[in-house]
Each structure stands twice: as C-alpha cells, then as structure tokens.
C-alpha cells in the first residue's frame, strides 16, 4: 500500500494531493526560512489560527446564499481575508501599543480561534448534515477529497512556489542586511509584508491538507532542520524547501495508504522525523558529530599527557591513556614504553620546553597565544624559529627508560 502511494498508484486524486502537498511543503520550507531568519517564526501561528473565523463566515455566507458551503475556493478566500485581519491586529498591537509581539501573537491566535469555535457551533446548529468537512480543516484531511479540490490544492501549491521563487532575492537581502536593502531601494517593511503574504498563501493552500493548527509546523521545522546541514543562507533555503517537499509528499502518501491516518499530523511527524535525524546525524552541528569531535579531542589530550608522563619516567595508571598508548604502539599494555614511544615522548617533552621559551620571549607573543596544550609547535613556527629556540634550550638529551 505504502509503496503504491509513494509511486503515485493510488488514483488520480491521491496523486494530485501528494503533488500538491509536495509543492506546498517546498513553499512552506522556503517561506519559513525567511521567517526564521527574521526571528518571527511564531507570527505564522497567529496567522494560521486566525483563518478559522473567515472559513466559518465564508461557509455561512455561501450556505445562506444557497450555494454549497463546502466550496473550497470560497473557504480559502474567506480564510485569507481573516488571516489578513489577524496579521493587521498583530501589527497594530505590537507597533501602536506597548505590548510585545508575543503577547499580540497569543492574543490574536486565541481570540480569533475562539470566535471561530463559536461560529463552528453556530454552523452545527444551523444546518445539520451540511457542516461535515469543516472539522477537517482544523487538522487536515484528504480522505474523500473532490477532484476539483485536489486540483485547487495542486495549483495553489504551484502558484505559491512560483511567488516564493520570484520574491526570493529581496527577502534574502532584507533578512540579512535591512540597511543595505534600503540603500538599494528595497523597502524592508514592504518585503516583510510580502513574506507575510506568502505565509498566508501557504496557510490557505495548506488548510485542507495539513489543517490550520499544524501548518505552522511546516513553516518552522524545515528551516530549523536545514540550519543543521549548512552555514550558508542560500543552502538553508534550498534544503528547507527540499525537507518541506519530502515531508509533504511522504506524509500525504503515508496518510493515503491506510485509514485513520490524519494527513496533517502525519506530514508534521514526517517532518519531525527528518528533524530528529538531522539533529543526530548532521555533519557539523549534529549530536553524533559533536560526540565524535569530543572523542577525538579526548584522545589527543590523553595521548599527550601519557607521552609527557613517559618522558618524565612516571608510571601511567589512567586506563584510557594506557589503552590509547598501547593501540598506537607507543607502549606495551603494562605501560612500559616501546622504542617508538620513547622517541615520541622525547619529542613531546622537548616541544613543551620549546613552548615555555616561546611564552618567555616577547617576539613570539602571537605564537604563544595559540598554545592550547595540544597544538604541534611546527604548525605555528617555522623550522628556523624552532632551531633558534632549540639553541637556547641546548641539545637533545636522550630519555632513559
């Protein structure tokens, strides 16, 4: 079943939905990156919750006018209007009063959603039977989707993605250097509004697939995940888009493959799985990489301390140090140094003496600041400088075992 779903064998609608979810995921990942870079990730939470009253009012309006209340295009239009209203409220509260943005976000999302819940109960009493389907917009449901709706979602995903690609350059500029953007004639506030417009578009398109409560996850998790893999903004955008796209596609496919697998949560959890993988496996910032780095560092410290101890003919008791020395062939398992070990130990001790000289002499101040107890002196000083230092120490003396 799952393989069928992943290879788009589950029928025309499921295929359209999977493609739409993938396009939506890409748009969400890219748009979310700019929100993340502007440190405004949670504004999207307010926007997405604020869609509910608009959806309900659109339903009521369409139903009273005699149409089909569940017309997806109409519901999407209504959600866009009330999402925009919610965004305006956040802006007014956070700019015109002394309340901070987080309070504005929380107030708008809870009040709009609360009002939406009131309208939902109105709809329930208004016309029993016809209201079915609105609940699906909370958490996303693609089961039994109409062909027209699937088409709207696929088209909406494609249009959003096109808009994202068009606005990518000004958004990058504003995210990193608002002053420079202003100086070349880009108004950061206009670009910010456009970013928010894209967030609205993602939310509106995602209503049916992901649902308005969880769409914020598709905007936040991909950029955070992408940040693990790269330090470059252009790459963060690309990777975030890819992660969003994969989550949307795989999530929609898994959800279509079995009953009682709600689409929204599945997409979000797929995304979260990718996040957890990245958290552990990313090459630079991942947990595994950090652990390996720590182990390498530990090994160098132990080897160095072991060699210095050998050079000064002190016994080595620390088990890890003994294991490491033995594995490198520098000492026998009982801690007695081999010939190679003696040579390395002498070198280590001599380097230590050289560093002491370096620390004393003012002309080596720069080099001395690089001393961390592990750095090989050859990587800091030229061989001429080293022989100069050796001259002040005197010739090498053998180490007796």
């Amino acid at each position, binding site marked *: 079943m799952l393989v069928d779903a992943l290879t788009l064998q589950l029928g025309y609608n499921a295929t359209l939905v999977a493609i739409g979810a993938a396009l939506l995921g890409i748009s969400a990942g890219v748009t979310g990156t700019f929100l993340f870079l502007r440190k405004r990730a949670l504004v999207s939470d307010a926007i997405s919750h604020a869609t509910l009253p608009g959806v309900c009012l659109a339903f009521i309006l369409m139903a009273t006018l005699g149409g089909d209340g569940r017309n997806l295009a109409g519901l999407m239009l209504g959600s866009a209007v009330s999402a925009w209203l919610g965004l305006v409220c956040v802006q007014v509260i956070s700019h015109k009063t002394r309340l901070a943005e987080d309070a504005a976000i*929380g107030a708008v999302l*809870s*009040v709009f959603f*609360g009002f939406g819940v009131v309208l939902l109960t109105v709809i329930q009493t208004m016309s029993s039977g016809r209201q079915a389907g609105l609940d699906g917009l909370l958490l996303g449901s693609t089961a039994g989707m109409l062909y027209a709706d699937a088409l709207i979602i696929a088209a909406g995903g494609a249009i959003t993605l096109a808009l994202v690609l068009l606005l990518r350059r000004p958004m990058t500029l504003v995210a990193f250097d608002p002053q420079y953007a202003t100086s070349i004639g880009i108004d950061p506030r206009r670009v910010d509004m456009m970013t928010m417009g894209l967030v609205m578009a993602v939310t509106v398109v995602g209503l049916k697939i992901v649902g308005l409560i969880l769409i914020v996850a598709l905007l936040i998790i991909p*950029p955070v995940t992408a940040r693990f893999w790269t330090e470059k903004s252009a790459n963060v955008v690309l990777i975030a888009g890819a992660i969003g796209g994969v989550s949307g596609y795989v999530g929609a496919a898994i959800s279509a493959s079995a009953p009682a697998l709600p689409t929204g949560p599945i997409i979000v959890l797929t995304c979260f799985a990718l996040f957890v993988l990245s958290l552990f496996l990313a090459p630079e910032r991942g947990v595994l990489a950090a652990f390996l780095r720590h182990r390498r560092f530990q090994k160098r410290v132990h080897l160095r301390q072991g060699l210095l101890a050998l050079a000064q003919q002190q016994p080595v008791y620390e088990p890890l140090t003994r294991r490491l020395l033995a594995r490198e062939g520098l000492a026998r398992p009982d801690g007695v140094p081999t010939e190679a070990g003696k040579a390395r130990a002498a070198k280590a001790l001599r380097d230590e003496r050289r560093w002491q000289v370096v620390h004393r002499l003012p002309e080596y101040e720069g080099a001395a600041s690089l001393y961390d107890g592990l750095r090989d002196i050859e990587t800091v000083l030229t061989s001429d400088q080293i022989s100069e230092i050796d001259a002040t120490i005197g010739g090498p003396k053998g180490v007796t075992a």
Partner: protein
Amino acid sequence: MGAEFVILSLTPILIGIFTAIACALPGNFLVLRKQALIGDAISHVVLPGIVVAFLVTGTVGTWPMMIGAAAASILAVILIEAIRRLGRIETGAAMGVVFTSMFAGGVLLLERSDTSTVHLDVEHALMGNLESLIWLDATGWESLVDPVALAGLPPELLRIFLTMLGVIGFLWVFWRPLKISTFDEGFARVIGMRTGALGMALVIVSAIAAVAAFDAVGSIIVIAMFICPPAAARLMTNRLEHQVAWSVVFAVISAILGYVLAGYGPLWLGGTDAVSAAGMIATVSGLILALAVAFGPCRERTGASAEG
C-alpha cells in the same frame, strides 16, 4: 434565576471564573516577561501526555491525566532545551518545533486509539466542554447547603478552585521577588535572588493552571485567559498591583459575560441552541483587549523602541 440556573449554569460559570483567574494571575508576569506564548506551548504539549495516560490507565481520572500532562510538559521542556543547546537555535523556533510535533503526535494517537467511550477527542481538547459540567444533584439555591447535593458537584469545580487558591498563594508568598525579578533581573540577582529558579517556578505554576483548566475548558480559552486580560490590564495602568487587579476584573467579566452570551445570546437573537461557551469567553476577552488597545489610558509605549 431559579433551580434551573443552579443546575445548568452555576457550576460552569464558577468554573469559568476560577479558570480565568487562575490563568490571568500568572499571565500578568508572563506578559511582562515576554513569555506570553508559554501558555500556548503548554496547552499544546499536554495533549499527548493526557492521551498516553488514558491509553495506559483506560480512564480519564484526575491523577492519571495530571501525571501524564506533567510528564509531557517536562519532556517538552527537556526537548526544547536540548534542541536549543545542541542545535544552537533560538528559543522561539525550538518551541515551535517541539509543541507542533508533540501536538501532532497526540492527535495521531487519539485518532488511532478507541476513545469513543470517553470525553476525549481533538475537539474536546481544543474547545473543552464547559457547558456539560452541570450540577445534576442540585434542586435549587438551597442545595448549596445540602451536603448530599454538594457531593455531586462536578469534580472539575473543586480541582480548579484549589488550583486557583494555589496560584493565589504562590503569588502572595513570592510577590516581592517576582516583582523585582520581572522588572530588573540584574538587580534581583545582585541582591541574591535565585532568578532562574523563580522563573522556573512561575512556568511550573502556569503549567499547573493550564493543565487544571485544560480538561474543563479546552486549550484555546486557556491561551486567551493567560494573555488577553493581563495584556488589556497592562494598557490601563502603570502599577503592577493595579494591573493584576484589572486583569482579575477583566477575567471575571470575560468568563461571566462570555458564558451568558453563549448560553442566552442566541435565544435573544431568535436562535434555538447555545454556542460554544469557551469560544465566547475567548471572544469577549478579545473584545476587552480591543477596547483597551483603542482607549486604554496607558497604551502608549514610553522609552523603549518598537523593536524592544
């Protein structure tokens, strides 16, 4: 205002009022400390905890739910800290990752398990069932002194009442340290306060209030009560004592007016059925905030810039 009111409306109104106060009081400090969205995060992450507690015990009793919610909250805090430190990611985004994922997990668990026999579904988690917390054993006002009838009160009432008392007690005992550390954390640390522990205690108290309120009134109203009354109160005055008093007044007005409008408003308009009380309470608190934003005497920002 006869027997029918006591049976059907008295307990929901009281629960609404107690919830509103229990959430609004710590909310004052959360709003001032720019941690307003903690209420949002908590009310999302407790869902999987409550669902798991239900799946393990098979009941929706008080203690399993409380323990499940607490475990989920602790897990969320650990996850957020881990993601923030390991990934060097700002708190807002780390919070966003954790609370959406845990909520998604909770929803999935709910959909996959058979919870049709109990009051446990996604809508209930979001919207609560304030209207259904009626006092069937009451026969009228005289039931208030009848021990037999009092024993039939919904357990949520006592739970949220004790929670409110606990919150009031916490603020009473730690008023001065909270006030000082909220407005000048550096000074608080200089005079030897453990501001980290105090901030954590505030979050824990907020979490307890959120969980106790969660099963009675749903998560949306919890978020609204944490933020809207304190935010509106903040625009009314410059003194913390007055702000807290205002926030309690706003919270109580929201709870009563919201419940009455939801229960009786549609009847006045010629309708036949009540609308969601929790949603209406949130709506009323939002209207109060809107009025404060438009007319509040202290709404202007003084000193700090808009970006602050």
